[in-house]
């Protein structure tokens, strides 16, 4: 057989070997048999050096063509086989996509802290700071500095938790106390933070004070002996009652929705004057009156007022130069109103089912 015949026979054989290889392994075996170091094509190519130089250009060209063809076929066949393998694999991997996903467990923030953060963000957005203070307060910071008279009923042991004083008479601004009361108490409001802030900072002051407060209410569906308040205080030049309204309107709309109306009812608090309570229009009936709002169309949400000049003076601020407003809201109340909580006690049990709802 002439060399050219051999070459052509080999070409036909290679074609067949490659095209009939059914698996990647068989194809690889074919590649080794043809193109490997001892492969037939490799052997043929090696013979090229030994042939007549006159025949070499033609035969050489033909041999190279064959080798390229074999390479191309191998590549092609390899791709075909891979594709087939992937398709086969995919056919076996189809799943019922309605099966539940593998969810990573991510924890939930406590509802009360979610609301506190929300309020903080609202007020930080309009330039307020967030201030804190001690929960075990002196009666001066909790009451007296806030203009609460010494015989105010809220000071009684029925309305305030008193703490055993380990050093009677040494608290800042010690006071005389009735039996069963002392200079040291669990703060009943976060208002003491306002006093600390006014003592420690020069106006302008724009602050909120979220925090835990305590009152001796036996725990039931609507009461807890500890709850959370967010109070706010602004002290600056030229602050008006209109500023209080504008600020609280904005706050109420942020928390309850832009379509809610507000109502300002004059009221009395020792530390503000004029004082008022703020109602938000009922979200259930839209203000028409329903059982949720006790048919009034309104829901009480805030207490507020212009800072009493006595309070400013107690904190070393001249009320003729500066004026301000203060407000306070109960976080549990906001939570109960927004989410219709039937029992506040669920807030403090650590019940995973409750925590994961919010």
């Amino acid at each position: 057989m002439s060399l050219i015949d051999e070459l052509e026979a080999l070409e036909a054989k290679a074609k067949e070997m490659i095209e009939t290889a059914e698996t990647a392994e068989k194809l690889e075996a074919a590649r080794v048999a043809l193109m490997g170091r001892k492969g037939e094509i490799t052997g043929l190519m090696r013979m090229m050096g030994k042939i007549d130089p006159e025949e070499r250009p033609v035969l050489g060209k033909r041999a190279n063509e064959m080798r390229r063809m074999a390479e191309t076929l191998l590549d092609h066949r390899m791709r075909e086989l891979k594709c087939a393998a992937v398709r086969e694999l995919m056919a076996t991997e189809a799943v019922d996509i309605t099966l539940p996903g593998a969810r990573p467990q991510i924890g939930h923030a406590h509802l009360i802290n979610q609301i506190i953060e929300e309020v903080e963000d609202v007020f930080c957005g309009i330039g307020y700071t967030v201030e804190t203070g001690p929960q075990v307060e002196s009666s001066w910071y909790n009451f007296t500095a806030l203009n609460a008279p010494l015989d105010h009923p809220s000071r009684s042991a029925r309305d305030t938790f008193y703490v055993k004083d380990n050093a009677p008479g040494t608290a800042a601004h010690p006071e005389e106390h009735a039996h069963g009361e002392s200079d040291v108490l669990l703060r009943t409001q976060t208002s003491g933070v306002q006093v600390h802030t006014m003592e420690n900072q020069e106006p302008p002051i724009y602050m909120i004070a979220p925090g835990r407060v305590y009152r001796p209410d036996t725990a039931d569906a609507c009461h807890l002996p500890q709850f959370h308040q967010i109070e706010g205080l602004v002290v600056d030049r030229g602050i008006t009652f209109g500023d209080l309204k504008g600020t609280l309107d904005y706050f109420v709309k942020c928390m309850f929705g832009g379509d809610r109306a507000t109502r300002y009812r004059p009221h009395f608090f020792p530390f503000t004057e004029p004082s008022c309570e703020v109602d938000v229009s009922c979200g259930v009936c839209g203000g028409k009156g329903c059982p949720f709002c006790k048919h009034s169309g309104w829901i009480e949400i805030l207490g507020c007022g212009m800072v009493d000049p006595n309070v400013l003076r107690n904190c070393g601020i001249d009320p003729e130069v500066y004026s301000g407003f203060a407000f306070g809201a109960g976080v549990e109340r906001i939570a109960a109103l927004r989410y219709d909580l039937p029992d506040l006690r669920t807030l403090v049990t650590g019940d995973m089912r409750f925590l994961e709802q919010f």
Partner: protein
Amino acid sequence: MKVSYDWLSSMVELPEDPAELATEFIRTGTEVESIDTVGEAFDHIVTAKVLSKEPHPDSDHMWVTKVDVGEANVDAEGNPEPLQIVCGAQNFNEGDHIVTAMIGAELPGDIKIKKSKLRGVVSMGMNCSARELGLSADHAGIMILPEDAPVGMPFAQYRGTSDTVLDCEITPNRADCLSMIGIAREVGAIYDRDFHVELPAIKAESGAATDDTVSVELIDEGLCDRYVARVVRNVKVGPSPEWLVQRLNACGVRTHSNVVDITNYVMMLTGQPLHAFDLAAFEERDGKRAVAVRAAREGEVFRTLDDVERTLSAGMGLIATGEAGATPVALAGVMGGMDSEVTDATVDVLVESACFNAGRTSHTSRDLALISDASIRFERQVDETGCVDVADIACALIEELAGGEVAPGCVDVYPAPKTVEPVELRLARVHALCGAPIEPAFIERALTRLGCAVEAAGEGEQTVYTVTPPTFRPDLPREIDLIEEVLRLWGMGRVEATIPAAKNHIGGLTREQRLTRKVGQILRGCGLNETMNFSFAAPGDLERIGMSAEGRGCPVEIMNPLVAEQTEMRRSLIPGLLQSVEFNIKHSTANVQLYEIGTLFFGRENTSAPKEREAVAGVMSGSMGDVTWNCKPMPLRFFDGKGVVEELLAQLRIPKVRFRPADGDAYAFLQPGRGAEVLSSGTVLGWVGEIHPDARDVYGIDIPVVAFELNLEALLKLSGAQEAYREFSQFPSVEHDLAIVVDDDVTCEDLERRLRSAGGKLLVGVRLFDVYRDPVRVGVGKKSMAFALTYRAEDHTLTSEEVERAHQKLVTKVCKATGGEVRS
């Protein structure tokens, strides 16, 4: 304060619809809790006429009556049908007009009228006395109406009592509004209209003068600002007239007898509490009945009008008589005494119109938990300037309604007559604080309507008003108080809402506040839910689980705790969290992952204020997530808790974190060998570990709980900044595994530190991937620790010779240092 619309309308013109007035009240600061129509209680009660009266066949004092109730009861054809009613009263005859409660009626005292049989005779209702109808104390017999009374008319309609009562919440500063006159004045100010009150006057005075009859001595100072006494002799104590009963009932005041009812009526009218004593209750000294006001002695016992024996504390005010006021007769300003009250036998009455000190009355009432109509008025400050006038009104009414003879004059002890200082009110200040263009004319008018004397001086914005508040408004001593009055009447709703400029002020969260939020975010990312427990603690809660109180100060003790488990403030978050684990397990949730960020309270000897420290703690039990079709959750153990702490510290970029075994008494609440102290550069941040089974037992938890508690303030302080970008090496790395057999007590930390130090600069990664113990293959008391070591150079591709050299050096050094051997 219950306000009778009917009564109020006799003083000032009112809108036809009471709801309209309520809206105005709410707008101006008087909360209206409810609007009720009285007379509704008279449902199924009608006027009637006695048709016949036969003796009861089986009783010697009861009667069987046939009563005509007109159209109120009809037969099947719609014709009026009389009712048969058994009646025990003796004061009526056939033909009398009476009041009958039919079946379905409800009488005061929760009496429901039903069809009944009285000694075998059917009774279809009840013929009522005035007392049974809740109208007066009169129970002498059934009510007999005039002969011209219609038959079958609803009783409420007949009586014309369709009054409306507004239940108003009066703020503590408005003592004046705890009276009908005060409310009428308020209405006048709201609507800018006049009000009129017709007050009765004493017709005649007779007998010995009051000051010849009575002596009043204020023994202890500070109890009583003024004491006025008048005497009315020969009163006829009996039921009050209908109109008086109606008005008192509308105000929610129970009626007793005419004299007592009159004192209550005058109190409702004027806001001045009065007390009527039986004059005979006061002992005679020097020919006069001696009245003394003195402070109670500690532990003194006194029986009040409600027949309760009360133990008094020192300083409570008493009205007393006898030598140095030895015998108490009333609790000043709060409640009268059992033995001095006016009874049917009373002949002479002493009317007390006094002003007891607000603070003292408030303390007495609070300490005894005894709140009366009088005490709530005194503690808000009664207008002492009115004491004499009010006493006169009461005496005039007693004269008129109880037939008394008023003794001439009064005894009036008034040590320091009150003066009212005028207050300056600047128009510019009103505008500056309210941010509203309130008209000067409005200001003058409103304050005048409220009873102030107003004089204006100056022009335009510079106008200054000199305002003299009335004596009954002790809450208006300052300019700001007047501004409040003006604003509330003008209307807070009318003020334009503005947002302050906040010039030169910067807000936002502090670094610590942002980091605290981040702590929460990281822990939630680790799968823990945030919870919140009480800040209270039970005494001994730390000892019970074996947690040392060292470094936690002394307990902060609550003087007036509500429950025995909440008498102190917490010194660790762990007891609360374990309680939450217990709660969840009891409610069939065994997989519990919770964290809490909260305040701990460390009491200090000789210091009033405790130290408050913020802490973050977590508990993990069960497994992360539930069993599902595609994963089997692993039970949470020590390393899961440690991992959470490591992640938290890494994300907070806390430098040089170390864990060391938490041993000894301080950590007796942790399972031995499964607790670690967490440190950063030598500062102890807290601990992580599995709760000791004995400690878990306290909470009835029978599965492992891994927990941690860290000092939040220390975390925030040590939290470092993000470091600058570091270039990745461009050159490939080479990985080598090394399993080394060491004694069991060689720690992973120790081994890792030695590997790193021995590996030099080329060793860039050390990762433990296996710990293996086997007495045969590894040896008793030994363990095999397998590490994946990564070698890489920053500036060239490592040759295998370089790696081999470095690795051999490392193996030699580490084996030598730890006494370990390479496991082949």
